[in-house]
């Protein structure tokens, strides 16, 4: 087996083992949170609301909630895992080895994606208790889940590279990702907004991910789905290049 592949599998295995070893911290909380969203917004409030884009409110928000779980957990996994290896200094195990920087990134990203997709899958299972979601196009569902978790795992890793203390790993999720996700069309269709706010909303990259993912289930979208795919690929390539540059320069990890 190619030695770089062995390096990648070793990091990915370590990251995945970590996720399942501490499942009470990594898998259970998002499932409980999303279940509450389903109960409160879907059942209690949603039953009082009219249909959105031809679907009842529960069916409309379910893909958005699944995507929200994927985004949050992909990001959280890499930022906390990478910062933790910096904090405990076991990042040095990797740095002294001949593992190429690109392989280090892919290994960590694999962990973020496993957690993001696992939580996404579990939340999807929970959603079955509340709504029978149609599957319009499984390819788009998987493509958006894959690309989104890839992009947010990378974003989490960049945060982890710059983080110097534990506070630094929660600033971006709290002040950037959560607001963007809430304003990213999870709970409403942007077509309901005035034109000006629709245009403003389109500057939020998360709206493309939520909308494209929802398209996979419902077959309706506010924005061209291929634009969403293109944006995700662009973000993926850009963030991967930035992460590679940061590791090569040793920012935050070498003196």
């Amino acid at each position, binding site marked *: 087996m190619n030695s770089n592949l062995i390096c990648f599998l070793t990091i990915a295995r370590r990251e995945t083992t970590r996720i399942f070893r501490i499942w009470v911290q990594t898998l259970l909380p998002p499932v409980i949170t999303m279940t509450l969203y389903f109960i409160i917004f879907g059942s209690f409030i949603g039953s009082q609301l009219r249909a959105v884009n031809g679907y009842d409110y529960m069916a409309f928000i379910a893909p958005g909630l699944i995507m929200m779980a994927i985004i949050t957990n992909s990001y959280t996994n890499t930022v906390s895992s990478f910062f933790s290896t910096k904090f*405990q200094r076991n990042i040095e*195990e990797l740095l002294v080895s001949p593992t190429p920087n690109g392989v280090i990134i892919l290994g960590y990203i694999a962990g973020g994606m496993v957690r993001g997709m696992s939580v996404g899958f579990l939340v999807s299972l929970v959603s079955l208790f509340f709504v029978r979601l149609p599957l319009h196009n499984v390819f788009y569902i998987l493509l958006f889940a894959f690309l989104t978790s890839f992009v947010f795992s990378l974003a989490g890793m960049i945060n982890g590279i710059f983080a110097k203390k534990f506070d630094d790993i929660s600033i971006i999720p709290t002040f950037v990702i959560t607001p963007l996700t809430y304003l990213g069309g999870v709970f409403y269709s942007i077509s309901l907004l005035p034109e000006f706010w629709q245009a403003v909303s389109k500057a939020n990259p998360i709206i493309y991910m939520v909308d494209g993912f929802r398209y996979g289930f419902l077959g309706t979208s506010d924005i061209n789905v291929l634009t969403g795919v293109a944006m995700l690929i662009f973000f993926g390539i850009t963030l991967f290049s930035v992460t590679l540059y940061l590791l090569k320069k040793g920012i935050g990890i070498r003196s």
Partner: protein
Amino acid sequence: MMNEMRAALSIFDLTKTYSSGLAALKGVTLEVRQGEFFGLLGPNGAGKTTIIGIITSLVNKSGGSVKVFGIDIDQDFAAAKRLIGVVPQEFNFSIFEKVQDIVCQQAGYYGIARAEALVRSEKYLKKLGLWNKRNVAARELSGGMKRRLMIARGLVHEPKLLILDEPTAGVDVELRRGMWDFLAELNRAGRTIILTTHYLEEAEVLCNQIAIIAGGRIIENTNKRELLRKLDKETFILDSKAPIASILPLEDASFTLIDSTTIEATFGKKQSLNRVFEHLNSQDIIVESMRNKANRLEELFMAMVEE
């Protein structure tokens, strides 16, 4: 070229200035030959860990060159890294992971397949007395066990050059001696070893070549025999059988009474011990026991670093 072939490590004019402005290395030139047990000694902040950091890529150098078995780290760092194993000064493994997982993962980072990694981790964990702790989380190990775990981890890819930064710090005497035997055995088997240590006795017992670094510069680099030859004075602590009031002076020697039965005696290396004892005997001072005040290398080290 021939010289380079025999060198496990060649460092030329290595400099490092940290972003804080601290010049940790001011042009270090050093060569470690294959098969040597090389001691790098120096006080805290002398630059030992910075040198190791540069060789292992944890620290970016400011200038100079480093070659590992002839491979320039600026040309092919990955190839150079495959030949190096490092045991750092501070614990740097995940305390939540199991002992064998830590060692196997390190093998994986060097491209060793898992099946082989399991075999090698068993070999080194057994050699270092940690096999029965293989399924224990690293946080549950004692300090000495953690040190041994880092040695096992540093050896799992079977490097030709092993670098140990203060490997026996905080380890009890019995365990330290056991580790010395293990390291000496590794060296006899052909592995080049670079050791930094605060225990100068350790360097005296293990190393055949010693360099002393102070203030970011190498101030001495020679073999141990040559270095000890430079020691012109030795200090001993003598315990007298009966209380002593005073001691008469002796040429080329000095005596200080630490308490009524303890004498600190310093005399030149050429001074005969018989003459010292005859001198004390003539004053009815019976020496019951004697020991070195400090280890011989320590005395020389202190003298050199103080210069």
